[in-house]
């Protein structure tokens, strides 16, 4: 039995088989010693890629349509192109390894296509990158596209948002990762999915772990690989009582979240995509307090169209059937980078070109998104909230732009419902001038993660700073009180959508401040409701 530990991000006990999710290999210019063998490897990879594309072509033709299938066909043609193949072979002959050669030649060809003055040809650059990636995957063995045959525990270095998009979420029992922080993507996902998970573990990641039995104790932060009988018995017992606590929470399903003295607070859910709707339903959330838009932009090669955005938003709004859905506009930049945005590298991305700053600068991106959101308003109750606000003038510019969009859509005869406009309070600047901002908007939602990071000047990704980080810091508590009070002076509602909202030790405090809404991971709603209903405040 191997025992180790990490920091728990969601309580509970999981028992299952290990699936190691390994990172893509870094492509470096390693020299190969046996050129003949390397050429042979490349030709085998080429054959395999051809087969894969054949299968993909049939599937695409069947499930999506001829136009998409034609793109796959073009890729198959490229895979046999003489310039491409000979270029790679020449590099291998000069001693480079196959993966690096594919990477270099693919990159050169793609760049040549991207620079052409012809939209159709430009777009072919993506096809070249795609086949190159495919070949590299095959060559580096990162090819075994990750699949879970039965439910299990994911063990990985860390997970990026685009990696998690492709995971089969129904089969994940727990995450055990080496890196991350309690606000990192994996931690947020674990909370949304309601699964015990550990971050910053001391685990040695090795593919030999695959298939071995693991227990994750999300209460204590321990994990056990190949547990002995005694440990297994103990943990099964613990799992059972955790189940009982959950069953106890079930008593609060379907109730209104009202304190003994009659104070009402809405308990909403934070979600990252329409896929999370099932957790909203199972968690019994009363609405959605934060629908992140980033998922629509991640894991793809080009901007989503207005219709794609609209369909995704509509699905959420419609499923919620008249319950409020607060959609946050794109908050990309900083730690969530997307290649096709072509954002320049920044010394200090958290203080950089991100969130509303991108939207107010690149209005075309903003326009497409706002049009999609407004269109979705016809299907339920929509509110929009804007991230990273620091000034009144930004808010006015946004409102003006929204009014323009509404007019435009009405001119086109599109049916719209009234939409509340609100802002995230997540910069110290916005918190301090919340009295002025309250005159401009319909609601506030406090993003405590960023507000804390900016107020305490602590990078939430930097593990070394964890001992300095105090989520209950007096400065944050004073800000929270100030924000709620300023909101109520102007008669608008205020909520909290950061992780702090789900901190059960603060529920009474938030009720005293008068917060109208707390938006938390869907799995947290029932525990929070129990707290509210039993509160003496």
């Amino acid at each position, binding site marked *: 039995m191997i025992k180790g530990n990490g920091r728990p991000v969601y309580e509970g006990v999981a028992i299952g088989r290990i699936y190691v999710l390994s990172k893509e290999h870094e492509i470096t210019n390693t020299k190969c010693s046996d050129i003949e063998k390397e050429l042979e490897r490349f030709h085998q990879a080429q054959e395999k890629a051809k087969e894969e594309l054949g299968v993909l072509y049939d599937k695409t033709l069947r499930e999506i349509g001829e136009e998409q299938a034609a793109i796959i066909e073009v890729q198959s043609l490229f895979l046999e192109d*003489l310039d491409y193949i000979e270029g790679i072979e020449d590099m291998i002959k000069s001693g480079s390894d196959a993966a690096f050669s594919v990477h270099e030649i693919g990159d050169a060809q793609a760049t040549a296509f991207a620079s*052409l003055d012809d939209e159709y040809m430009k777009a072919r650059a993506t096809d070249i990158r795609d086949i190159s990636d495919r070949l590299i995957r095959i060559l580096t063995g990162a090819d075994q596209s990750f699949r879970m045959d039965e439910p299990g525990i994911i063990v990985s270095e860390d997970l990026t948002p685009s990696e998690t998009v492709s995971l089969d979420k129904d089969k994940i029992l727990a995450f055990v990762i080496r890196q991350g922080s309690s606000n990192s993507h994996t931690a947020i996902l674990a909370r949304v999915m309601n699964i015990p998970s550990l971050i910053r573990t001391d685990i040695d990641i090795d593919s030999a772990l695959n298939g071995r039995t693991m227990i994750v104790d999300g209460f204590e932060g321990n994990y056990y690989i190949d547990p002995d009988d005694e440990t297994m018995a103990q943990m099964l017992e613990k799992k059972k009582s955790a189940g009982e606590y959950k069953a106890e929470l079930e008593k609060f399903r379907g109730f209104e979240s009202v304190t003994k003295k009659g104070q009402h607070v809405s308990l909403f859910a934070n979600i990252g995509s329409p896929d999370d709707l099932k957790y909203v339903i199972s968690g019994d959330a009363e609405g959605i307090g934060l629908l992140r838009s980033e998922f629509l932009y991640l894991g793809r090669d080009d901007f989503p169209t207005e219709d794609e955005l609209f369909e995704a938003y509509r699905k959420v709004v419609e499923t919620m059937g008249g319950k409020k859905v607060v959609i946050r506009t794109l908050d990309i930049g900083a730690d969530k980078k997307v290649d096709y945005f072509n954002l320049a590298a920044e010394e200090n991305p958290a203080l950089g070109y991100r969130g509303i700053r991108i939207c107010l600068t690149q209005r075309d991106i903003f326009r497409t998104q706002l049009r999609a959101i407004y269109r979705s308003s016809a299907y339920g109750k929509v509110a929009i909230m804007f991230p990273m606000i620091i000034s009144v003038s930004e808010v006015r510019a946004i409102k003006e732009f929204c009014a323009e969009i509404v007019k435009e859509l009405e001119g086109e005869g599109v049916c719209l419902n009234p939409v509340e406009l609100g802002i995230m309070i997540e910069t110290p600047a916005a918190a301090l001038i919340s009295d002025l901002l309250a005159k401009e908007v319909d609601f506030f939602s406090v993003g405590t993660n960023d507000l804390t990071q900016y107020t305490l000047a602590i990078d939430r990704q930097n593990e070394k700073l964890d001992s300095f980080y105090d989520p209950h810091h007096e400065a944050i508590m004073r800000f929270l009180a100030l924000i709620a009070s300023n909101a109520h002076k102007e008669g608008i509602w205020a909520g909290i959508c950061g992780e702090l909202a789900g901190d059960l030790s603060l529920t009474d405090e938030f009720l005293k401040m008068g917060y109208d809404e707390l938006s938390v991971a869907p799995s947290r709603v029932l525990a929070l409701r129990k707290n509210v209903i039993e509160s003496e405040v």
Partner: protein
Amino acid sequence: MKSFDYVIKDELGIHARPAGILVKKLAAVKSSVTIAVKAKDKSADAKRLMAVMKMAVKQGDTVTVTVEGEDEDAAVAEIEQFFKENF
């Protein structure tokens, strides 16, 4: 050496799919085949797909196809036919 001129009628120009079919067809031809747009001073080996596509030949461009080698007579007729049917 044989050659012919042809004005591209397809609104997408010489795009990927027919170009791919052309390249495959030409693999069986022994002669060398060159495709050029003289007005734009561009030319490429017609057996190389990416090279042909990178010329970004558009509707209305006049291309000159030149065939040189032992089977040039048969090949040029076949290629001209292919252009008429596909571009």
